[in-house]
């Protein structure tokens, strides 16, 4: 009984949460142990679920033996596992990075410094966040999603303020407000849905095939709430300051994972629960996404702060995820598996690449103690591996072969071309070029040797390797995509409706 594979779901959620509690204790050993346990729980749960889902299809786990309507049900299908895996991969690397980034807090000097605050609180917050993310991916009902969203939002906002600058505080506060407002929109949607459908289960709601004005309003409210959390244009304004001001590991987590959490919910709602909703709604999302791609890239090009640039890049890259919506449901009806695989593969490779970039950027700013593109001039020679990690991450982001981004772009493009969606195809292509433009802007400064950086701090090897590992992973994603994508097809692509 205890060996039943369904318990992997419990482990995935509870493991990190409990480890977070342990880390809260505050002593270095507890923090380290917490991180190791949380990481171990997530990774092993992911691995277990992966094999199970591939072998047996989607998995349901009614907690305490009580299923719907009253009980809470955990649910794992290919999509969930993919998101879990993404979180596990990025999370592990970031955890490794963080242990070096915040310094050794067993040293008294470090503990009393402002940075020591980050060292003490990062691990618990992050484990909390990890648990809530895993929970979101495994949650089978919408109210549960709300609760976990709140946990995620609160811990994420708190992570921003781990940096002790006033900028970070203000940015974190704004993030919190937006996040809470977004949650409220979501909750209103939940309430409306429940009054209409009388159930909270995603699966049951899907089976009801809801239509009419009230479900539409509910979907709109939930979408806007999630869009605010995912920083969809034009509600993206909060993201760049927050992600830029946060400590580097936190930025990586926020940009790579947290935004994916809310995006995941949106995807579930639109694809699984509402079966695509209406074409016009999908188009609205797609057009906003397209605008985000262009806008975010242009804004990224104008930044002088390295992390801010990457943050705007996140805005742009998230745009692709919304472009995926209209592509999923072609105009003539039907379903585009290419868009599905491509979009999710983009989410995955973006997470990996973006985390690599943020971690690398963190190492660079760590080395020169300034977050300025001009300050990193010549860093390529000082930190070749970090430079390489940043470059590879950036190129993967831009969809340069052979990388995960390339495979994702190929699939998305194929979907667009198949449907005759030339606008989307051109947008995806141009977006890739714009991405290259800002990535190269950074690389150009990094290789510039005309002036030496005035001060330079040695970067712990662990930080360099963590970034490099993610960059290599981003690359490898492009060489072997079959397994990952076949996971998405386990148990059918659109299982519910």
């Amino acid at each position, binding site marked *: 009984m205890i060996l039943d594979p369904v318990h992997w779901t419990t482990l995935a959620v509870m493991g990190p949460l409990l480890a977070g509690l342990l880390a809260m204790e505050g002593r270095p050993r507890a923090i380290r142990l917490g991180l190791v346990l949380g990481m171990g729980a997530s990774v092993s749960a992911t691995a277990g679920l992966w094999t199970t889902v591939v072998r047996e299809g989607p998995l349901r786990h009614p907690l305490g033996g009580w299923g719907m309507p009253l009980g809470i049900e955990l649910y794992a299908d290919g999509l969930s596992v993919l998101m879990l895996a993404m979180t596990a991969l990025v999370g592990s690397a970031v955890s490794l990075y963080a242990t070096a980034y915040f310094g050794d807090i067993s040293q008294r000097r470090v503990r009393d410094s402002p940075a020591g605050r980050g060292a003490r609180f990062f691990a618990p917050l992050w484990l909390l966040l990890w648990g809530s993310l895993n929970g979101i991916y495994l949650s089978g009902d919408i109210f549960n999603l709300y609760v976990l969203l709140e946990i995620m939002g609160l811990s994420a906002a708190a992570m921003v303020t781990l940096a002790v600058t006033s900028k970070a505080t203000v940015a974190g506060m704004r993030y919190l407000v937006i996040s809470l407002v977004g949650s409220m929109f979501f909750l209103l949607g939940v309430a409306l849905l429940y*009054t209409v459908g009388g159930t909270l289960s995603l699966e049951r709601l899907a089976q009801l095939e809801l239509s009419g004005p009230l479900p539409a309003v509910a979907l709109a409210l939930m979408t806007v709430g999630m869009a605010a959390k995912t920083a969809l244009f034009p509600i993206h304004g909060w993201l760049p300051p927050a992600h830029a001001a946060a400590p580097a590991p936190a930025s990586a987590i926020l940009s790579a994972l947290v935004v994916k959490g809310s995006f995941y919910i949106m995807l579930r709602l639109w694809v699984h629960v509402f079966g695509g909703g209406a074409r016009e709604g999908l188009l609205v999302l797609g057009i906003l996404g397209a605008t985000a791609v262009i806008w975010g890239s242009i804004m990224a090009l104008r930044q002088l702060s390295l992390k801010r640039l990457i943050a705007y890049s996140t805005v742009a890259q998230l745009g692709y995820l919304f472009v995926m919506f209209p592509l999923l449901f072609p105009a003539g009806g039907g379903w585009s598996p290419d868009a599905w695989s491509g979009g999710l593969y983009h989410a995955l490779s973006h997470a990996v690449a973006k985390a690599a970039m943020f971690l690398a950027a963190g190492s660079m700013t760590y080395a020169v103690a300034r977050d300025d593109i001009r300050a990193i001039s010549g860093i390529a020679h000082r930190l070749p591996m970090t430079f390489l990690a940043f470059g590879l991450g950036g190129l993967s982001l831009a969809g340069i072969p052979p990388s995960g981004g390339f495979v994702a772009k190929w699939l998305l493009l194929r979907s667009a071309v198949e449907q005759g969606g030339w606008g989307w195809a051109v947008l995806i292509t141009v977006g890739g070029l714009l991405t290259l433009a800002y990535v190269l802007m950074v690389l150009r400064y990094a290789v510039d040797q005309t002036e030496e950086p005035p001060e330079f701090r040695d970067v712990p090897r662990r930080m360099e390797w963590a970034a490099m590992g993610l960059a290599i992973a981003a690359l490898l994603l492009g060489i072997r995509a079959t397994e990952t994508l076949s996971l998405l097809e386990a148990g059918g692509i659109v299982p519910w409706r």
Partner: protein
Amino acid sequence: MTPLALYTAAGVGLFAVGLWGVVARGHLFWKVLGINVMGGGIFLILLAAPPRLDPAQADPVPQAMVLTGIVVAVAATAVALGMALRVAARTGLPFLEEDAGDPGSGGGADERGRE
């Protein structure tokens, strides 16, 4: 007018008022309060949710949801207030708008021009 419609209308009204508080008022306390008002509106709707199994008995699910929601709201409020205090302490003012206030400051837009 059924109770559901009434409650829903009232709930949406509260939600709107709360939202107005969040977006129109600069003071962080107002914002936090606004979010709570939004939550209150939603709870109102949930309370009036129609019975599902037995017409005479209230549906326990929305009740549970409201309770849970209140707990979450309290926690969120606590965090938000704590952070608002920190903002006030760091910047000297309990506002967000000063940072993003005038167009061209705070954002990355003019960094090039400024530096």
